């Protein structure tokens, strides 16, 4: 009887995590797409050297970061999938959302200071797991995505750094 309750609880947890996780993912993607469309006027490059037409521009370091995690259901599926290998779609989605979100936050910061272009973009990833190397059941699957670059803006109001 107790085993049944245990299994039932686990199933409810998995189903709940799946539902909320899926809704959250969809919502996040639609928000990402909306903001990407709005901020598409801010150009971003990972080139180190801005062309000389930007010589008269002011610069500031901008960055955006986000810590993303995958839901319990997808983590369970991923740990099963690890047995056979191949693509772990649930983690792909997590990293993709995180990276796009980080870039968007960086762009939003550039927008706040009035910059129209960002150069030398670097993206860093840091895994924040509870169990170091253990890979045990309790390990949180989450990662920090951080994007930063140098925003350039036309000479104008006083320069500020908000990085």
């Amino acid at each position, binding site marked *: 009887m107790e085993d049944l309750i245990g299994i039932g609880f686990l199933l409810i*947890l998995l189903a*709940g*995590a799946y539902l*909320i*996780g899926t809704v*959250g*993912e969809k919502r*996040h993607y639609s928000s990402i797409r909306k903001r990407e469309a709005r901020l598409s006027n801010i150009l971003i490059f990972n080139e*180190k*050297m*801005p*062309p*000389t037409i*930007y*010589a*008269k*521009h002011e*610069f*500031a*370091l901008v*960055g955006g*970061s*986000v*810590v*993303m*995690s*995958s*839901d*319990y259901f*997808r983590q369970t599926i991923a740990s099963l999938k690890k047995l056979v290998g191949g693509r772990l779609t649930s983690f792909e989605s*997590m990293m993709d959302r995180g990276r796009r*979100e980080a870039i968007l936050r960086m762009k939003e910061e550039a927008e706040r200071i009035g910059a129209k272009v960002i*150069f*030398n973009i*670097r993206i*860093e990833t*840091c*895994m*924040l*797991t*509870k*169990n*170091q190397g253990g890979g045990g059941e309790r390990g*949180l*699957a*989450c990662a*920090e995505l*951080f994007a*930063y*670059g*140098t925003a350039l803006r036309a000479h104008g109001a006083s*320069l*500020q*750094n*908000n*990085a």
Partner: protein
Amino acid sequence: MKTDKILLSNIEYLAGYTISKHLGLVQGSTVRAKHIGRDLMAGLKNIVGGELAGYTELLNESRQEAIDRMATQALAIGANAIINVRFSTANIAAGAAEILAYGTAVVLERKE
């Protein structure tokens, strides 16, 4: 904030500016741990997935502090800008992260 007084960039050569003095490497770092409440909330949030806002905030605060410390060092040696800024993050223990910011302190002058 210290960062208002100093120019920061992760580009090492900026068109339109000349470097009149190189002052060497400056760095700032901080090790932060989240408090137990945040940890607990993140653990719960992790069940449904998505952004862990508590951790995002924590890392942003830490990064700002690392930048501030780096800026303090640079201002102390008379720089007005830090170029070629790099960040690095290390998860040194369970629940604690080190954020390091480093760059080259320089005296930058705008070309007329």
